[in-house]
């Protein structure tokens, strides 16, 4: 359970989860939406996978990630997102703001 808390405590990881709520996405597709480096993104994916919140499947050369959140985990993430709103802009927003 602590691994789940650790995973959803980070705003970038929460945003990855929010993106995966729409549909499964490849690692590249997800990484393109953030301004952080690929190794950092990879570390975020590892944390999420170890917490059991996402699942990785190899599809040819790319890795496809899909959401694996229970109802309670999703509710917990929603709560973390609400509480964490004042932490500042999210990674994707920061990227959008960068000229």
């Amino acid at each position, binding site marked *: 359970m602590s691994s789940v808390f650790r995973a959803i405590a980070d705003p970038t990881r929460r945003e990855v989860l929010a993106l995966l*709520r*729409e*549909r*499964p996405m490849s690692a590249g597709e997800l990484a393109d939406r953030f301004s952080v480096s690929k190794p950092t993104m990879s570390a975020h994916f590892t944390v999420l996978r170890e917490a*059991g919140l996402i*699942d990785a*499947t190899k*599809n040819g050369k790319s890795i*496809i*990630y*899909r*959401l*694996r*959140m*229970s*109802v*309670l985990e*999703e509710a917990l993430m929603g709560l973390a997102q609400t509480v964490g709103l004042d932490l500042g802009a999210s990674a994707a927003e920061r990227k959008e703001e960068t000229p």
Partner: protein
Amino acid sequence: MTRSRNALAAAVIAVALVEAFAIALFLLVPEKREYWLIAGLTMPILWAGAELMKRNRDSLRVAVAYAATIMAVCEGFAIARAMGWIAPDNEAFALRFLGIACGLVIVFMGNVAPKNAACVDPASPHAGRTQALQRYSGWVLFLVGLANTLIWILAPIKQAALLSMVPVALGLGLIAIRIASFRSVRSN
């Protein structure tokens, strides 16, 4: 592999419990033998039939495990009553307990439903919609289970059985509508 084994083990244990309880009830309450016979035969026949269809066996076995758990809880209640472990004046309390237990099984079932990765093929063009349907079903079942549990806790015992069916029927109706709309979009 481990997930498949766990699903199979859970289904086998739950169905074995249903069968053991059905046999016990067959002997303990002979005047209702036809009920226990139906209870004992339903799960294995349905499970075997579904296995022959060879569609997504892992999720099927998980579903069998949940259904059999609810059945085993109900049979356990009948055994306790037949053995005289539940005094007649405690029957209302025992019935309430049984209702709460069934509600909590639905809550648990709904909670883990979106985690079942076998339902979503990430390479499929409908992966997003399938995942959304899975999440929706999980949330509906979770809320249905909570409502069901609350009704069994708070409602007068005479009305609880009938009232508890309202959220279940409503929830199943909502899921059925969503599945129907998903299928119509998929076939277009």
